[in-house]
């Protein structure tokens, strides 16, 4: 099992001044699995993503990707190593077309414009956004923006993909479509995914395993059914049934 580990978070802590956002969190990510990361607002989920993706270094602890310590590495280098991410609040390049947005990601693997364009078209096709390829980033609807976020990250050809609330804010029909999309992409690309999500139906459905954070501390880890039955999780996150 252990040689199957692609990413390992070891005793990671992040302090912002007096606030401990992430407190001594450890977990392992296995090759080609979907790990759900859940917890209430302020639990430290996005902070954890930011540290893995290199937005800022952890205060303590190690992050190991394919046997290499990557904590504190610059985010563009992390991207080149093979970790892609999306943002909770979509960050489109508004004045650029959707295709050009995705090409920025593709340029991390392809030097030539024509190759990057080809890659972008391919990825847009995959996430079902090709019909909007010539629209400006600023013209997209929320579901389209979320697709573009995924497309841009996929264009960097990651091995590990960090999805930060790509489903939140979508209507139930779109949620189902997106769940299928994520699963499909994972299978086809042999991707390993960590997904932060509040939509329980989606996360329970998608995840192979789930890690639960509460106020920066990991309070549970296991199969979706196990986690959902964990009294600690029910009390702190899913809501205690008095």
């Amino acid at each position, binding site marked *: 099992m252990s040689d199957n580990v692609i990413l390992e978070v070891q005793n990671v802590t992040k302090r912002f001044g007096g606030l401990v956002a992430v407190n001594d969190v450890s977990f392992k990510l296995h090759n080609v699995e979907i790990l759900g990361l859940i917890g209430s607002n302020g639990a430290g989920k996005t902070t954890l993503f930011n540290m893995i993706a290199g*937005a800022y270094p952890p205060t303590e602890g190690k992050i190991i990707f394919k046997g290499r310590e990557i904590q504190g590495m610059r985010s*563009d280098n992390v991207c080149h190593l093979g970790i892609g*991410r999306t943002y909770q609040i979509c960050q489109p390049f508004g*004045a*650029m077309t959707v295709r050009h947005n995705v*090409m*920025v990601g593709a340029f991390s693997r392809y*030097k030539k414009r*024509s190759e990057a*364009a080809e890659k972008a078209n391919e990825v847009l096709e995959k996430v079902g956004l090709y019909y909007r390829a010539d629209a400006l980033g600023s013209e997209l609807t929320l579901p389209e923006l979320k697709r573009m976020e995924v497309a841009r990250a996929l264009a960097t050809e990651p091995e590990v993909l960090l999805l930060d609330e790509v489903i939140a804010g979508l209507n139930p029909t779109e949620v189902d479509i997106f769940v299928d999309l994520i699963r499909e992409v994972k299978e086809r690309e042999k991707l390993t995914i960590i997904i932060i999500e509040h939509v329980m139906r989606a996360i329970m459905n998608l995840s192979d395993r789930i890690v639960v954070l509460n106020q920066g501390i990991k309070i549970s880890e296991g199969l979706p059914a196990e986690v959902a039955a964990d009294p600690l999780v029910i009390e702190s996150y899913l809501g205690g049934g008095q």
Partner: protein
Amino acid sequence: MKTLKKFIPMAILIVVGLFVPTVLKSQFYMQSAIYVVIYMYWASSWNILGGYTGLFALGNGVYIGVGAYVTAVLFVYCGITPWIGMIIAGLVAGLLSVLIGYPVFKLKGMYYSLASIALMSVFELIFNNEMEIFGVYTGGPNGLRFPVTGRALDMQLSSKTSYYYLVLALLVIVLLFSDYIQNSKTGFYFRSIRANQDAAASLGVNVLKYKLTAHFISAFFTAVGGAVYVTTFLYVNAKQVFGMDLSFSMVLFCILGGANTLWGPVIGALLMVPIQQALRVAAGVELAALSSLIYGLALCLVMLFMPDGLLGAIKKLIAKRKTATVAPLAAAVTDAGQGGAEDE
């Protein structure tokens, strides 16, 4: 077909540009034409930094000054022709911009702009007050005069028309280069940094490296322009090249015409330089303030009603027209200036 279409504006510029001297007979008008073209050139150089990459430098005139002084010193003391001197000057300015950019890029937005003004002011003070810099006599407020040789080999051309063709050639070069950059990986990275540098970094863009690249390119071209500019006068002094005027003008013309577009800076300078000159002539010395007032008012109006510049406003108008007939194509049209579709 697509590439052919792209070169039509360039062809028009070159053809019209070549014919201008046959229409403008007087020396005064020829000098004005030189101003127009060199401002087009500087605004285009600034566009690479301020337009594409979104780094709002307000003191880029510093590179005009560095380019001018390096060229002058090399010619006056080492006898190196400005034809070579301008390239060395460009490289020196580029290097300076990288050295300065490195710490300055820790500053964001307004602070970055202020730092760039401060840098220029420091250079102006030094060059205006010190008679010697690093042991080389630069003349302080008296400036530095080029020895007259009258040889084309020393970039001392026989007529205004020749100088005009020289700056026109520079303009064409910077535009071709801008177009090339805009459509390359580097250009995509510039625009992604402009839009959102954190998102760009997460997609593999080395933000600092590309900011410094933009700085270097912009400084290089700006300095080469400065070298040619002072060679037309055979004289350089600090007030002339380090003043706020040049720095602000290149930014204003670029924004007025349409920053982040290839032709915006050209259109901006084409309209504003003649207006500026005409107002100056019309108002005379007594009413000099009036010309500035009218000029300022015109600026405010354009900024208010055309926030994307003249070219942006025209594009929007075309897009609106098209929306009425074929809605989905509007977006493609709006973006036509940035390289068109890529349906391979």
